[in-house]
């Protein structure tokens, strides 16, 4: 190797090898960390996104006064709006038990009676679930608008089946 090149290589090599070592450790930590966390939590209940009304009623004390999610179907005929406000009250059901929910805020477009819903908030045993966030849950059914009647019945069934 010729002399003029030597300082050049000495300057760049530690830089690149440092960067490469960082890249190696970083990518291994990111991939194995994310994967490990996912596999580990898959043996716990942490990946269960919401509880059903039956689970909440059966373990009322355990579920109380902490932030949880409840999912199910908006019971038909249960939705009551307070006029002039965004406040609503409705029942979430899984076909067996139900939970009264109170919410004050903007609703997603898919929120309606007879359809899936996930509410995030706090359960006050014997009273109401105070929701701070309402998410709509879609069923796996995709049906043209001309077949709405059939679609409503089908998606209701899929949803309740999935909660069993």
């Amino acid at each position, binding site marked *: 190797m010729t002399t003029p090149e030597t300082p050049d290589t000495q300057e760049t090599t530690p830089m690149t090898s440092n960067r490469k070592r960082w890249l190696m450790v970083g990518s291994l930590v990111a991939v194995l960390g994310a994967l490990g966390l996912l596999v580990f939590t898959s043996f716990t209940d942490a990946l269960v996104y919401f509880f059903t009304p039956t689970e909440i009623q059966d373990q009322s004390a355990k579920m109380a006064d902490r932030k949880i999610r409840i999912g199910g179907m908006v019971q038909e005929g249960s939705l009551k709006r307070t006029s002039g406000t965004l406040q609503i009250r409705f029942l979430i059901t899984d076909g067996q038990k139900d939970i009264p929910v109170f919410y004050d805020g903007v609703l997603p*477009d898919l929120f*309606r*009676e007879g359809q899936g819903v996930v509410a995030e908030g706090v359960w006050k045993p014997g009273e109401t679930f105070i929701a701070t966030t309402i998410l709509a849950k879609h069923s796996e059914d995709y049906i043209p608008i001309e077949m709405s009647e059939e679609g*409503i019945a089908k998606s209701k069934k899929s949803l309740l089946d999935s909660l069993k």
Partner: protein
Amino acid sequence: MVDGTPTPDYTPYVMAVYGLAALVYGGLTLLGHWRLKGLKQRLDDFGHDRRERSDDNSGDT
């Protein structure tokens, strides 16, 4: 919609998704062709260098 309310129009959301998909997949295609072109150019340059050198001192690898 099913409960009688008019169906909202989600065209902006649909267009955002289609636009994004076109950008990513189209971009990946263009990037691939552009890199291939550059690499082939370099490969050709090597070919020229070699021929020139082997003209200079034939017998060298």
